[in-house]
């Protein structure tokens, strides 16, 4: 087990360098970022040269990358164009996005899995058909439509919530945005669980468990659900990374100042330091989430062992 973890961690190193290099190059391809700092006019050349020097933009790209990576390992993610340290931006943005992601994941687990179990056990019944139809609708409607409609109905028409999240972004204000963010994944989780449960219900070990005279509740939670959750856990695990990076739309609609907001602004302003810094952290989150998922397999299914 320990050896497996170490091997996986070592594998992360090339992935990490490859991903950051790609992002670095992509942001650089967009051209000279300093020109955008002076509005609809030309920066005065002397100041432009000094700014480029300050942000290290006067050096060749490979050298910029090398310096940047060197700094990253000492914990220095550089400075954004508005003079703020990128670490400072991260400190403000990540807690918010993590809270939002937690809300979304909790929704996925609680609602998604319960609906999945419910429909999987009652396959073909009206409730199954109804939930299936509902998930189809949720999957086919884009997130920004769900977001805007909920915002307009709950926020403006009925006044149940505030249409946007305050800058502190406490958990209770993140409930609706979290639901919106989770909606599509939630539908997938429901469908995955449903199929998995329906399939395993006829498996030998379930029949054995019932024949042993175990109470139905125990059969479902200990035997059926545990085995059916493997694909669902994989999905949710990879979804953590996707939710954190892909919250741009939801964060914009509800004015949440999280990772999505910083990334969006960083891209518009071509701030290499901001974009690469945030993406680097997201890459790490993604890699770690995947590792945890793989380790969870062993917990869920004793047949899987890592050596």
């Amino acid at each position, binding site marked *: 087990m320990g050896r497996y973890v170490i091997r996986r961690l070592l594998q992360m190193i090339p992935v990490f360098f490859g991903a950051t290099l790609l992002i670095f190059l992509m942001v650089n391809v*967009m*051209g*000279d*970022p*300093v*020109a*955008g*700092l*002076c*509005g*609809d*006019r*030309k*920066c*005065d*050349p*002397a*100041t432009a040269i*000094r*700014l480029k020097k*300050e942000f290290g933009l006067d050096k060749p790209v490979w050298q910029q990358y090398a310096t940047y990576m060197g700094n990253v390992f000492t914990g220095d993610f550089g400075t954004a*164009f*508005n*003079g*703020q340290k990128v670490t*400072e*931006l991260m400190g*403000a943005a990540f807690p918010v996005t993590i809270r939002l992601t937690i809300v979304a994941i909790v929704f996925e687990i609680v609602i998604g899995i319960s609906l999945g179990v419910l429909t999987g056990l009652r396959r073909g019944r009206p409730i199954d058909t109804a939930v299936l139809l509902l998930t189809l609708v949720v999957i086919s409607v884009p997130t920004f439509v769900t977001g805007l409609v909920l*915002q*307009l109905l709950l*926020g*403006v028409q009925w*006044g149940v919530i*505030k*249409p*946007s999240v305050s*800058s502190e972004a406490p958990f209770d204000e993140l409930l609706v945005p979290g639901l919106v963010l989770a909606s599509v994944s939630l539908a997938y989780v429901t469908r995955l669980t449903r199929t998995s449960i329906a399939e395993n219900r006829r498996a030998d070990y379930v029949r054995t468990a019932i024949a042993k005279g175990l109470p139905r509740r125990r059969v479902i939670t200990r035997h059926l659900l545990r085995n059916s959750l493997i694909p669902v856990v994989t999905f949710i695990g990879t979804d953590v990374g996707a939710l954190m990076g892909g919250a741009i739309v939801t*964060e*914009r*609609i*509800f*004015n949440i*100042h999280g990772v999505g*907001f*910083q990334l*969006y*602004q960083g*891209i*518009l*302003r*071509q701030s290499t330091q901001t974009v690469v810094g945030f993406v680097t952290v997201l890459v790490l989150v993604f890699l770690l989430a995947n590792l945890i998922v793989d380790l969870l397999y062993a917990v869920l299914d004793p047949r899987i062992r890592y050596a």
Partner: protein
Amino acid sequence: MRGATHAKWAACAVAVTLAATACGGGGDGGGGGGSGIVTSSWGDPQNPLEPANTNEVQGGKILDMVFRGLKRYDPKTGEAKNMVAESIESKDAQNFTVKIKDNWTFSNGEKVTAKSFVDAWNYGANLENNQKNAYFFGYIEGYDKVHPEKGEPSAKTLSGLKVVDDRTFTVKLTQKFSTWPDTLGYPTFSPLPKAFYDDHDAWLSRPVGNGPYTVDSYTKGSKMSLRKWDAYPGPDKARNGGVDMVVYTDNNTAYTNLMAGNLDLVDDVPAAQLRNAKSDLGDRYINTPAGIIQTLAFPFYDSEWTKPGREKVRRGLSMAINREQITETIFQKTRTPATDWTSPVLGEDGGYKAGLCGDACEYDAAKARKLVEEGGGIPGGQLKVTYNADTGSHKEWVDAVCNSINKALEKDKACVGNPVGTFADFRSKASQQELDGAWRAGWQMDYPLIQNFLEPNYFTDASSNDGKFSDKEFDKLVNEANGETDNAKAVAKFQEAEKILARKMPAIPLWYQNGSAGYSDKVSDVSLNQFSVPVYDQIKVD
């Protein structure tokens, strides 16, 4: 009680306009109106919030609340009026003596002296401080030493600035510039307290100035709370208790919040909501002219466009654009068809002249076709109009302009839009002369002077002359106008120079942009100034 307060304010307003004397003074019985807080939409400033480093509206909003300079532009008329300055005098339009009023202090108690200005300007001009508005000090003697185009600066201070005593300093310019005092309302010329230099980081996280508001708290990237400064010595005390500026990533969300009653003021109504704004807000929707003009610029570094006769092509293209229709259908009248190269906010006396462009700015398809043909047709057979696709919904109007040109010239592909991904990339291409064909050029004035619309854009090798247009006669007239001590004569000279633009058409004037804003029923007396920045200090909370 209420009526009395109103009357007092009216009296103050009259007094201010008549003699620019201080009014209100001290905290005597209701001198400042209510104590309610206004919440307003805001965008994250692009640059650090230093006066000489802020060149866009979002940072400008804060500077306008926290600072007062020598002059201030009257939010209604745009006239530059003395604020901290008692007088700015000159005999030769080149050497100025500035006297400042005695009663001004920064909100930390420090006195505003001549040195507060001179030090701040030296800081702003110095190349080593990386201030993006440094070129504003370019007219002051010694600028080439502290801000050389190449290499390290050889001086730390501008030789043209001299402190005479606590309340007086002199300024020597490198050339005659009669309207120079009128440029001093721009926030870049604000005074700075000692704390700015002593602990720069602390100052940046909570700016201290001499304006009607003080910064109460500032969470970068999300919110700034400004509170009324009770001991503010100026005539334009805040009429509310303070302003909370909340950052919105998307102005649609801000508008939704205004509708839900969570926000009092949205100063940028999203294009998609313009259609509804009137019915949603009624008279709480404002749409007033701002000092912004949009043009289509041409590349004069490309020999194809400088050939004789090409001005006919440009004039023809200008006539092929149906400005009326585009401003009405796409912009819902938040833009006005342009007929000169300035802006209506200058006023007739300031140099705005409707119709100066002549019939070249009137839609006439048949004439347009004829002119383009006479001029030898569009170089390369097709006009590419480059724009940035990330902000400002430029795609819609560029497509509409091209559509109008194609229809008028009766060719399917005479004009096509050419989007560039980001604003930064677009600006970098434009400023390095990498664009072929036309591109969208917007100009937001720095100060309400005709000089500011013409010189930076069309003078040979001027800072924003991306198209490299050059005309000897135009340059000569601009220089003459700058040396003219009489304002009316200067304006006339500038207009003469502008007539050359009408003939040569280096950029096609499209439309004047308005500022738009919407506000809730909790506040009143909301207006926008010529820079489309809300006049926060006048807002009343009911």
